[in-house]
């Protein structure tokens, strides 16, 4: 029974609150379609960035019982951010509805259509800039219209296969133990925080107080699991090893779905309307099937990211390889699309300064950079390398040197993190 109440609490803290946060902290760039999964991904990342700030402050500035301060402060902030998200979203909808109401009955029948035109004054789950309404329900309904086509059947079968593969992976994640010596460090650090109330100040292997573990103190991912354990009441070890894969594996696939959507033009920043929706959905379905089969059979050595995903799902390095890296790849696709649009002038849309900062890609890079520092200390160096390499290439391909400049600018947090890490180590 405690697992049931724990699960409900986890859904609240892990799914509901980040989603509500995402309602306000999703970028406002016109070219970004704010579908449910994108809103959630941004909300989750923003929550993680806040957790990083709160927990690192508690680790370094509070010596005793610092974990309880961290839990209290972050829980309050998480709820406040979610309330702010809902309030801002509701306010925008209200203003929008009032405006529509004022336009008269004739325009009210067009409310749904005009909502898709993306005035930018409120959040819609649509592709502003394309002039077409698109929300998730309509996306499915347009798919259903094609149910007579062969592609539709293909899409249904491929997505069913993917669903089956995911369900199998989740079942195995719960019922299978993968022995890994590193758990004695990571899982026990989470457990120490919940049972002893202290963060990184006890020797995990044998117990007993020690100096602050500087090598790991900035990579606070185990403390995030400890936080979830504390608020849900589920033992930290059971949470990390049995419960978290049930969230993390679907979340990893959700990110790959976003990447696949960008590649094949489904629920992406610019959908490819030249092809039927069912055909594109089938493409993404096959992509996801291949990704999930590779996740199971990609264990060709102990070093592959696929192996880390399946056997060490809850460890920071596995989360870095399978969450941070795909998110950066998603940002790279967005940025290339955005600059392609500008150069080709397809929509006549110009990139403003604010959309450069909070627009597709760059803001995502900033959040992922912070997240990668939470995962593993060396993560920030890797994400910086990936961003700079991608931006260099994009700058050359798009003949736009500013891409490289922005790429370097978004890596400033990484440089600060590395400096702190080297100085404190």
């Amino acid at each position, binding site marked *: 029974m405690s697992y049931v109440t724990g699960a409900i609490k986890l859904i609240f803290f892990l799914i509901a609150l980040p989603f509500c946060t995402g309602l306000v902290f999703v970028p406002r760039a016109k070219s970004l379609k704010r579908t449910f999964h994108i809103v959630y991904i941004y909300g989750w990342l923003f929550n993680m960035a806040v957790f990083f700030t709160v927990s690192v402050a508690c680790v370094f500035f509070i010596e005793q019982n610092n974990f309880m301060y961290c839990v209290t402060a972050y829980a309050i902030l998480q709820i406040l951010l979610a309330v702010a998200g809902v309030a801002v979203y509701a306010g925008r909808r209200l203003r929008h509805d009032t405006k529509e109401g004022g336009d008269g009955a004739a325009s009210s029948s067009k409310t749904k259509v005009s909502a898709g035109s993306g005035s930018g004054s409120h959040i819609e789950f649509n592709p502003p800039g394309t002039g077409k309404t698109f929300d998730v329900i309509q996306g499915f309904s347009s798919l259903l219209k094609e149910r007579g086509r062969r592609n539709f059947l293909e899409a249904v079968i491929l997505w069913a296969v993917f669903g089956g593969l995911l369900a199998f992976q989740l079942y195995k994640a719960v019922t299978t133990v993968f022995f890994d*010596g590193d758990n004695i460090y990571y899982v026990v650090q989470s457990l120490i925080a919940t049972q002893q109330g202290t963060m990184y100040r006890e020797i*995990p292997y044998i117990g007993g107080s020690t100096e602050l573990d500087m090598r790991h103190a900035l990579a606070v991912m185990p403390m995030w699991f400890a936080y979830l354990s504390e608020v849900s009441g589920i033992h930290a070890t059971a949470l990390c090893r049995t419960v978290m894969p049930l969230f993390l594996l679907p979340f990893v696939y959700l990110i790959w779905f976003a990447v696949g959507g960008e590649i094949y033009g489904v629920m992406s920043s610019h959908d490819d309307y030249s092809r039927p929706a069912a055909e594109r959905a089938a493409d993404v379905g096959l992509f996801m099937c291949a990704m999930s089969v590779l996740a*199971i059979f990609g264990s*060709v050595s102990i070093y592959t990211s696929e192996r880390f995903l399946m056997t060490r799902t809850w460890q920071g390095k596995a989360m870095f390889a399978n969450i941070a890296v795909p998110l950066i*790849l998603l940002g790279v696709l967005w940025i290339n699309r955005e600059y392609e649009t500008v150069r080709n002038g397809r929509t006549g849309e110009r990139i403003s300064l604010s959309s450069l900062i909070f627009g597709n890609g760059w803001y995502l890079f900033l959040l992922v950079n912070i997240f990668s520092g939470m995962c593993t200390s060396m993560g920030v160096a890797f994400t910086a390398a990936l961003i700079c390499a991608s931006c260099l290439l994009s700058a050359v391909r798009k003949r736009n040197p500013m891409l490289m400049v922005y790429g370097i600018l978004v890596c400033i947090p990484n440089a600060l993190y590395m400096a702190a890490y080297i100085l404190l180590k």
Partner: protein
Amino acid sequence: MSSILNYLQLNISTLINYAGTGFLLVLYALSYVYLFIAEKDDRKRTFFIWIPAVLWLAFMMPPVRWLFIKLIDSGDTYYRMLWLIPLSATISHAAVKLSSGYRLIGLVAVSAVIVLCGSSVYNAKAGDVNIVSAAQNPYHIPDEAIEVAELVKKTDEGHKIRAVMPEEMTFYVRQYDTDVYLAFGREMVMGFPAANGMYEVMTANPVDVWELIRKGRERLVSAYVFGRYQLLSDDPEEYGLIKLGETENYKVYYDPEELEYVRSINYFYFK
């Protein structure tokens, strides 16, 4: 010049180790070549061809490894650079592109290749050791480790209990309860031993029980766990240890004299 060659050699051996059976990299190479020829979309070419090309080049360059060792980690973690290259995504995209129009046949063909040539994570091994087993509980540790931890905790009156136990148990007990301290643990395996020779005594055959108790008292050890498979020099009860209980494969004792002392000094602090 020789150090450049050394770094290059190291990079190649890192790549070979990462490749393992080689299947994933071969499939990736084939997908890469196919996409290099067939992918015409500029954005996808940047994503699947040019960015990975830069990353491969960076991975192989000796100065990058030198910088990595100097600034980030001197350990053997350079292979993580390869995580930045979307191997699976490239293979999957090539599969989608190849099966255009025949996706279900494509799914069967691609799955067959991956299943037949790949290595299932559910039969994973580290070296020759099988690392996969069926879960006995939500903690994903052996039930017996929980039983041992509960037995050791019987003597807990708000203070910490430091226990000595066979090496295999040290991997699990603190994943269940961090109130149980250990005389030695994984730091022995990691190569920075903290214990005063207790590890050597505990792993000797037979175990010198009196020597273990003598050293244990120096380290405030009040609980002793012996595996039934361990050969003991004497019966622990001869030296005043009292049996707390038994599990299928382990016997748990406590040292009343040391326990009294630990309680009198409020070992570390009360919870």
